[in-house]
Structures are given as C-alpha cells and as structure tokens.
C-alpha cells in the first residue's frame, strides 16, 4: 500500500470512530439518568417553566429525533460557512450559540497545549536518553524517580505551588490570565497571542504573553514529561541492546553518534505514537491547568458551564474535545506511516 492509499483508508476509518464517539457523548448526556433541565434549575423552577425550557432547547422531542438533530447540526455545512463554526446548539444559560463560545475559547487551549507539549517532549526525551545511557547508575535512578513522582502529582497542585512561589511570594510571574488586563490583546489572526503579537511586530505584547504562558505551560509540561521519560528510556534501553547498535559500536563510532543518530532515531517512533495518546491526557490536564490559572480556554469554559449546570454547553465542549483528539490521532498515524514504511504494508 502506498502512502496515499494508507492516508485515504485511515481518513475513511475515522468516520465510524467519530460517529461512535458522537453517539457516546449523546448517550451520556441524554440517556443516562438525570434530566438536564431539572438539574439546571436544581428544582427552583415550576413545571411549566421547565417544560418551556425543554421546548426551547428541543429536549421535548423524541430521543431519536434529538439524535438526528444533533448529528445533523454538526454536519450542517451552510451553518458552518455562515458562522465559521459547527452548530452545537444553544447554551442553557446564555442562549448564545455554543459553537461560537467554544471557538473563541479554543485558541487559548491550543496555545497552552502546544507549548506544554513542546516543554514535555524536550524534558522527557532529553532526560530519557540520559537515563538510558547511564542505565542503573545513580543518575538513572534520580531521573526515574523524577519521572515517577511527576506522574503522581495532581497537575493543579503543581500549578498552585508555582502560583504560591512565583506569584504570591516572589512576585515574578502573573498567576493567571493570558495577558495583563491593562494590555490590549493583539489583533486575532491565529488566536495564539504569542504568534499574533509577533505578526503585529509588538515585542512587549509578545514578552507579556510569553510571561503569562510560562507558569501554566511549565506546570503541564512537567507533569507530562514523566511519561515521555519512561517511554524514551524503555525504548532506548531495548534499542541499545540490538545487534545493529553493537555493530555500530564495533565500527568505532562515537558513543554520542550511536546514541543520538542510531538508537534515538529507532526509539523515537513509539514515542511519537505516545505523543498522540498523550494529547488526550494533555487536554484533560489542560482543563485543570486552565482552572488553576484562570486561563480563558475550553477547559475553563467547561468548568464554568458545569457550575451553571449548562448541559448543552458541556455537551458541545465534550464533542469539540473529541473531534480535536480524533484529528490529532489521525495526524500522528499519518506521520507514523511516513516515518515507518512497515506500517503501510
């Protein structure tokens, strides 16, 4: 199978997965015990008011019609072109379009997630390689210990400690928000403040937005790095025992050449797959990190909506999370096939 036909098959295979995922979200939000409208009002409304609310949101229709409406809204191309986002229904709290609210919050999450992933992979791969090179030495144990501990730290706890140390005690870094409220955000081109401010040529805004990004990204990056350390270390150890490494050493190549251009290249593929899976964990971590740092992204949106018991908004946000993860895993699989021709066979 060539790369192109692999990509096409992989994309086609995404469709049933997506359908399944959307159905599961629907199942959880509509079929599980608990009436959204009743939960929203917490028994403070009259039955008539609740009935009206159900009618407004279309929750009084039979379940299967709701299901079709829900799927239909997502693939409604005309709506998508008109608004720039898919139809995810109206919020129970504000009666605004959930899609619009989500897509204005999304860039903040994307920016947080991207930089955190970069930090995690740099720390993780570097420490993982060092750890495998010095297998069973004190350094190896220290790095492994670090990896294990990061895995056990609740991400919000690390964030709170950072806020306490660098914000409350030292006053070095801001403890929340994407940008100092005094500064006007850069014109939205990509929605990522660091990139937009560079495009605008405004160094101060770039500096300020990077400063705000530092603590949240470091928090999430450190927490995720543990998995990368473990994956890189295990894969490097397995690879370093293979015959071709012994052959490379026997030819008198430098140990650094053997480690970095021979072993790491081979050990990297499983790490790449891991990155795809990590992305889901990263988004989960982003919800908690955003809450900790008042970061106005999708995670904070979902948490705020939970406090309002705004079920249509929660459902929309969950769907978007799912779409995002599916997209990332698609990209990772295609990259994997590109790097490792065996996959395409």
């Amino acid at each position, binding site marked *: 199978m060539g790369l192109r036909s692999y990509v096409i098959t992989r994309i086609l295979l995404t469709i049933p*997965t997506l359908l399944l995922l959307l159905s*599961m979200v629907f199942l959880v*939000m509509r079929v599980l015990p608990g009436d959204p409208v009743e939960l929203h009002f917490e028994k403070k409304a009259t039955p008539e008011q609740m009935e009206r609310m159900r009618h407004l949101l279309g929750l009084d229709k039979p379940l299967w019609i709701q299901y079709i409406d829900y799927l239909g809204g997502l693939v409604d191309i005309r709506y998508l072109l008109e608004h720039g986002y898919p139809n995810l229904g109206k919020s129970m709290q504000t009666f605004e379009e959930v899609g619009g609210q989500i897509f204005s919050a999304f860039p903040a999450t994307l920016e947080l997630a991207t930089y955190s992933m970069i930090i995690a992979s740099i720390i993780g791969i570097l420490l993982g390689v060092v750890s495998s090179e010095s297998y069973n030495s004190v350094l190896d144990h220290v790095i492994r210990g670090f990896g*294990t501990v990061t895995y056990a*730290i609740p991400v*919000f706890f690390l964030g709170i400690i950072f806020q306490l140390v660098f914000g409350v005690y030292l006053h070095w870094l801001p403890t929340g928000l994407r940008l100092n409220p005094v500064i006007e955000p850069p014109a939205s081109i990509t929605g990522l403040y660091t990139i937009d401010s560079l495009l605008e040529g405004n160094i101060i805004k770039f500096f300020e937005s990077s400063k705000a990004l530092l603590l949240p990204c470091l928090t999430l990056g450190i927490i995720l790095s543990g998995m990368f350390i473990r994956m890189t270390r295990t894969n490097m150890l397995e690879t370093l025992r293979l015959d071709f490494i012994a052959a490379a050493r026997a030819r008198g190549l430098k140990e650094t050449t053997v480690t970095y251009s021979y072993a790491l290249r081979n050990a990297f593929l499983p790490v790449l797959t891991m990155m795809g899976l990590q992305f889901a964990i990263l*988004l989960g*971590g982003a919800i908690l990190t955003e*809450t900790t740092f008042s970061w106005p992204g999708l995670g904070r949106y979902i948490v705020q909506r939970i406090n309002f018991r705004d079920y249509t908004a929660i459902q929309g946000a969950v769907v978007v999370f*799912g779409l995002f993860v599916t997209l990332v895993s698609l990209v990772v699989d295609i990259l994997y096939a590109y790097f490792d021709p065996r996959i395409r066979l």
Partner: protein
Amino acid sequence: MTKEKIKRSILARLIPGLTSLTKRGPSGWMVILGIIIVSVLVIMTVISPWITPHDPTKIRVGDIREPLSLQFPMGTNHLGQDMLSRIICGGSIMLQVSALSVLVCFAIGVPIGLFSSYVGGFFDRACSLVIDAIYAFPGLVIAIAISAMLGPGVVNMALSIAVVYVPSYFRIVRSQVLSIKELTYVEAARATGAKWHTILLRYVFPNVIPSIVIVATINFADAVLTAAGLTFIGLGITKDIPDWGWDLTDGWNYLSSGAWWIITFPGLMIILLALGFTLIGEGLSELLNPKLQR
C-alpha cells in the same frame, strides 16, 4: 482443596514472593516501598477516628489560618479546623472511590476482554471499536461529563472514573489472550477436548493476571488523581467529610493570604497515595518485562 488449604497456599506463595523482591534490584525495592506507603496510608485512614488529636470538623473562630504550632502541628484552615486531624482522616473518600472504581473496571474490563479476544470475529471487532473510541477520548472529560450527569456520591464518582479505565483492562487482556491462545499448551488442552470456558479460565486467564495487576495499580493511582481533579473543579462529594481534595481546593481560594500549609499538606498526601500505587505498578512492570531482563 479446602478453604484453609487455599489460604495457606496463597500466603505461602506471597511471603517468599515479597522477600524475594529485595533481591530483584531497584525495581523490587520500588514495589516494596510502594506497598509500604499504601499500607501505611490505608491503616492510618482506617484507625483515624482513634488517633486524630482534635475533632477534624470542629470550627474554632479564634484560630483561623494559624501557622504551624505545637497545638496544631500542621496549622489550621480558614475555619480554624486542625489540619493534622483532617490530614489523618482525609483519605477515606479518595480510597473508597478509587478502590470501587478499580473493582468495577476489573469486573467489566476483564471478562469482556477475555471473552471478546477468545471468541474473535465480529463481536471482537465491534468491542474493540467501541473500546478504542473511549480509550482515545480525554479521560478527564468523560469523567467530568458522566459525573456531572450522575451527580455527587461515592458510587457515582467511582462509576464515572471506572468508565475511563475499562478500556485499559480490555486492551491488555485482549492483547495477552491473542498471543497466549496460539501457544502449544493451549492447543494441547483443546486437543484433549477441554471445553472453551475451561481453557479460558484455567489455562489462559492465570497467565494474564500479572498484566492485570500492573494495570490495576496504575489505575488506582490514576483514580486517586482523577478523584482529586473532579473535586477541584467542583464535582466533589461533600464539604462535611474531611477530604484531601476538598482541603486542597479550599486552601487554593485563600492562596493570596500566603497560608501554604492549607494547600501543601493535603497535596502531599494525594501525591503520596498516588505515588505508592505508581511505584508498585512501575516496579512490577519492569520486573515482568522480558525484554529488559538480562
């Protein structure tokens, strides 16, 4: 075999198993350290009613956010409650929720995994598709959605966490069974005319157990962290029962006052509990990884 005999044989295997861990290098010690941490925390929580120096829920208006002192070795929170006492008994909800979620995962994931992979065919493919879809989804998002729908409560919280981790059990069991069922001894069992369920339970299942134990310990650690996360975003159980997750979240609201003790101690306890399980899981997986044995 009588019950007594079974008990003796399990104990007889367990004790040398534990002592032999000390001879297995750092991974063995990780497992031992993990077991010690977890047992100490569990015992502390169980006997907490008798060992707390103060009543953990008693509000003292005069002692709000007191720093560490002899009377309050871990300080007090914004209600003047003694933090040490709250720390000692604060693990109960978290332990209940995670233990229950592990049990539920085990009870659902393992049988489906065994059956599905052994039978194969359409059933297996359908199961895998559903499970993979859940597996790919951000776990915390599923837990949030389900727990928001089900409402607060130990069982509800455990269920919402369990849904996230069932796929891990299914996948590990399935991948193991797929390789084990092709082995010669299983073929031999089939040739002697053993029934399929006998083969599955007597011949295949025992060889899957080590992997399940690893998944279960990791699952335990994750469940602790997820429970803490759910509490942090406001889906916790109740304020009335002392809980590390609640205390941490509550202390965070008073962050600017600089009262680090309200935040730090509950956080460290959550880390310790999760770390205990992680150590066991990671140590075991290294001990059982044939590729790393010299």
